[in-house]
Each structure stands twice: as C-alpha cells, then as structure tokens.
C-alpha cells in the first residue's frame, strides 16, 4: 500500500466531496499504550490520516502544548522506535494511512535507511520530517522512494513561488501547507488566507494539499477547507485533550469526542 494508501484515501474523499481530517498525536504522552489506544480511537471516530509524532528533546517548531507533550513523552518511553511500534499496532486493526511525523535527529540516530525499511515493515505510509528541507536528507529520500513511502513536503507562508517547484519535485502523497508563520498551537492563524494559498499550491503541485497549524475547532477546520483544500490537520488540540484526561478510558473518550465533532463539522459543510 504505502503512498498509494494516502493517495487513495485522499482521492476517495475528494470524490465524495469530503475533506480529510488528519490527526496528530505525540507518541508516548502519557504512554505508548495510551498512544496506540488514542490513535485507534481517532481512526474509529472518523480521522482519515494519522500523524504519529515522534517526541524530540528540542522541538523548535512547536509551541508550548506540543513541546510539553514531547518532554513528557520522552520521559515515558516515546521515541522513533515507539512510533514504529504504535504504527504496527494500529496497522493490525486499521487501514488508516499513517505518517511518521518527526524531527530529523531521531532518524539520524536510528539510521536513515533502517528508518525507511522499518517504516515499510510496520505498515507506515510516509514520513514528514519537520526540519528536513528538500536540500537535505538525500539518503532517507532515496530509501523512502524505493520503499514507496511518501516524504511529505512542507510549504510555509514565507515560501516564495519561485521555491515551490523545488519543494514539489519528487513529492508524493500530499503537500502540507503551514497556515501560519509561527510554531504549532499558535492562535489566530490566518486560515482564510491559508485556504487561498493552498488552492494555488494544489494546482501548481498537482498533488492534494492539507493545511495544518492553528486549527482547533470545527469552525477553524471549515475555514481552512473553504477553498478546496483536501484536508486539515488538528494537533495541539488533540494533544491538549489527551493531556487533560485522567485515565486511559477518559483519553480515548476525549479523542473520540473531539475527532467525532470535527468530523461531523466537516461533513456537514457543503464542499
């Protein structure tokens, strides 16, 4: 399956006139078992793609919510290895597309080629590496390509049109458009602007576009999707809900509730 799994899911949703809901979790917050349970809960409640977040000690692109989750997760066994284990456990029960979302250093420590091989083996479908612009990571890219795993490119509000083709070259799966010049969890993302830019990217890249950063509520999700983006990512809000719950049952319930509400909001909106 691999990259096709992502592409088929996005194409299927588009054909139905629906917007993909991408859900981010920090693996290991508060434990790897909880992450597996929450990931499956998200899938049951209507998530279309999972981003399994590898916690990193120095998360420079993350705001306080995800950064704090990363520190807790590292303490509780979160790692790239744990994200692979989570992917493997989820894959046994669900066909939801899985993206391994990480900073680069955990992959350097694990080994680029081994990371791409193990990702394939456990049934993950791609990588999104926050701090790996296309100029870097040739070994990982080549191996991922050989294994038919997506390497999701990021486009930012600061990215010039002249740089875009370089980002799209060799990309597969989808393009991730970062809605805001800032870190994750930032409030007041200019979502309408982002929605417009995403529509342009979709045409130029000839790939689906997913918008992330700053999307918390159904209303945010709808605004972000208003110009035909293929999907939206919700991260900090999920992480916050998991952190606020006191037991595994409560975490699972919180994820189901939040994802269910987002799903219902997106599905009720005419596309």
């Amino acid at each position, binding site marked *: 399956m691999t990259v096709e799994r992502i592409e088929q899911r996005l194409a299927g949703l588009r054909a139905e006139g629906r917007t993909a809901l991408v859900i981010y979790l920090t693996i290991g917050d508060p434990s790897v078992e909880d992450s597996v349970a929450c990931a499956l809960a998200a899938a049951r409640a209507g998530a279309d793609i999972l981003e399994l977040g590898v916690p*990193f*000690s*120095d*998360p*420079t*692109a*993350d*705001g306080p919510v995800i*950064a704090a989750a990363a*520190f807790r997760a*590292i303490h509780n066994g979160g*790692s*790239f*290895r744990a994200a692979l284990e989570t992917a493997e456990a989820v894959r046994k029960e669900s066909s939801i597309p899985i993206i391994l979302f990480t*900073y*680069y*250093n*955990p*992959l*350097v*420590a*694990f080994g680029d080629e081994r990371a791409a091989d193990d990702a394939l083996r456990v049934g993950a479908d791609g990588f999104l590496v*926050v*701090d*790996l*612009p296309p*100029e*870097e990571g040739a070994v990982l890219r080549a191996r991922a390509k050989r294994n038919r795993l997506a390497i999701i*490119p*990021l*486009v*930012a*509000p*600061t*990215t*010039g049109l002249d*740089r875009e083709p370089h*980002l799209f070259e060799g990309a597969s799966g989808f393009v991730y458009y*970062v809605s805001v*010049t*800032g*870190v994750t969890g*930032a409030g007041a993302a200019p979502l309408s602007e982002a929605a417009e830019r995403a529509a342009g990217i979709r045409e130029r890249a000839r790939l689906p576009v997913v918008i992330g950063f700053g999307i918390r509520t159904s209303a945010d999700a709808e605004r972000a999707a208003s110009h035909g983006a293929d999907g939206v990512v919700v991260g900090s809000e999920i992480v916050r809900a998991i952190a606020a719950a006191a037991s595994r049952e409560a975490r699972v319930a919180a994820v189901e509730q939040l994802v269910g509400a987002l799903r219902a909001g997106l599905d009720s909106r005419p596309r």
Partner: protein
Amino acid sequence: MAVSALGYYDDFGGRFVAETLVPALEELENAYREHVLSAAFQNEWRDMLRHYVGRPTPLYRADRLARLLDPAQKTIGELWLKREDLCHTGAHKINNALGQVLLAKKLGKKRIIAETGAGQHGVATATACAVLGLPCEVFMGSVDVLRQAPNVARMQMLGAKVIAVESGSKTLKDAMNEALRDWVTNVRTTHYCVGSAAGPHPYPMLVSELQRVIGDEVRVQFNQQSGGLPDGVVACVGGGSNAIGMFRAFVADPVALYGVEAAGEGVHSGKHAATLTAGRVGVLHGARTMVLADDDGQIVEAHSVSAGLDYPGVGPEHASLMASGRATYLSATDEEALASTERVARSEGLLIALETAHAFARLPEIAELERNKHGRPARLALCLSGRGDKDLGTLRDRLGFGKDV
C-alpha cells in the same frame, strides 16, 4: 576550509530547519555575499571595530604564567595571549554582534533577537543594538540568568529585554530553541543574531568571517613581536566562534590548532559539554555536526561550570576539522578551569572568563605535544576570549573568594 554551496564543511553543516525559515536563511546568505564581503561594509564595520571596540586588541607575552607552568623552560618557549578581553564589552562576541546588527540594518530588519549563555553575546548584541538603534530581545536560560547575573543587569541597562527560558536544561541550548521559535514567528521583521559559529547555513560561515579578525591580527602581531608563525594556537570551544576566529588565519599553514572543550565533572561522568571529544554525529539547531545525544536521538543536557561552554552541540566546521585531523580537540574539567582562573589571576593579573580558563588549563599538555613535535620549547598563542567579572558569583561559591574579609 572552503564551505560548499549548501553550507557543508565536508560532511558537516547544512541547513536543517523548518521550511518557514529557509527563505530568511537564503536572504541572509545573499546578504552575506552582497554586503559582508563588500568594501563598503568592511570599511564601516572595521571602523567601528577600531574606534568603538578598540581593535586591534594586543597580543601580550605572558612570561610569568609561562614560567609558573613550566619552570624548567622545557616545553613553553613563549606564551602569547590574544587579549579579546580588552574588547569593548569584554569578549570577542562584539566582533560578530556588530557585524550582524550592521547587516540586519542593511536588510531592513526592525528587531534583533539573540540567545546567550554566559551573557557575553547578549551584552554584545544589546550593545550593538543600542549603538546602531534597533530594539533587542535576548533569550537566556534561567540557570544562566542566575549564574551570570551581572550580565543580565548590563543587558537591561543597555535597553535590551532579557527573557528567561524555563524549558529543558534552562541553559544555552534552550535559549537557542526559544530564539528559533521567536524567529519562526517574526522572521519577516526580525534578524536572529546567532552568537557562535553554529546553527544553519549561512551562520557558521557568517560568524567565522566576522571572527576571523582575531587570528588575522594574531598572525601579523606574532610576526612583528616574535617573528614567523606560532607553533600552535589554542582556544576554548563552546559553539566555536573564538576558536574558529583564531584558527582561520592559520589553517593553511604548518601551525597546530588546539580547541579545548568543557569536560564538566569529567568526560565519563555524563555531566560534561565535550561534544567533539565524547559526542556523536547528529543534527541540532539546523546543522549536522557533533552533538551529545542518546540512542533515540534525544539531545542530552550538557554540563559545565562555564555557561558559555554549556552546550551539547558545536559549530560544524570544528566537527570537520576534527574529522580531518587538522585540529586537535582536548577538554578540561570544571575543577581544572577554576584552578586555571586563579592561577592566571595570581601570575598575570588577568581575571579571565571561565570559558577561556578551559583553554589555559590544557596548556601544559599542548606545550608538551608541540615540544615533542619540534624538539624545542614551543611558541604558543592562546585566545584570551573574555574577561571574568561576570563569573565572580561562581568564583565566590566555588573557590570561596570574597566571603570573609
């Protein structure tokens, strides 16, 4: 050493950042080529270095210390100290800060941010911003805010806003994380004035160009005052800016290059900052370099009595100089650095920074190596990167000075 188009020194360097920052780094790289290397910029910057900073700084022959370390005159022939402590603000950091703030003005940036460990780069950036008229915010780990308190007051006096960082190890690494987060958010209007020859391309190239003035001066002064070239040059290594500034002028010559890192409580204690000596290859703060990390790739906390060396990464050019064998990297413990500080103060009347003290601490071994190589006492030049007033609190706590009078 030549840097590649993508910012690599052999296998080390590059640009590992969120896409949001890539355009700003490209802009800075273009500005480097257009301005920093231009005659107009160089004239303006060098004029300030001369009349405002007080360059060239002296090269001082420290005979009393040389004899204290080597009474028999077997290993140390001549010991020369490059007096960066006499720069305005008290350390080499001002060379870089003035250059970057000048450059930021050319780019039309409206605001400057910086990270600082010892506070010397923070003070230097606050100073450059005051004299060049830009607002300045400095991120500093809360541990360092306490142990380098005099520099916090200096920054505030200069009109800078100091932001205490409470995350992670609450030291230099975390200050840099927070500065990067601010920069990602305000990148269109803000220049991030990185304080060492570390970080994503083009920072290592830019900072080393702004610090090479140290070694360039030493080369001329040494030839005038002693004759020829030194056998070896020595510097402490945190991120590596004073060291690369010292090394650059000699890298193509038969001059040995020695960097000294912080071994904290010992390189096997798990509490150290000897990234080159005891680290592994990794990616931190935008560059592939040597880092202190565990098997999962999590960066581990560094430890050093000196805030300026308390960092689990190092500039990529040093990683490359070590890999090629061109430079030799040693380390000195907290205890050795503290003892050196006292020794240098008593023998030469110089109150040196704890960072610098690490370089002094390895002088006997370095002199021995060079003596063995050349078969005669060595002529060494050491970068006295900064003065130690900021460390009086630590010196009082650790060595007991200033308590009972």
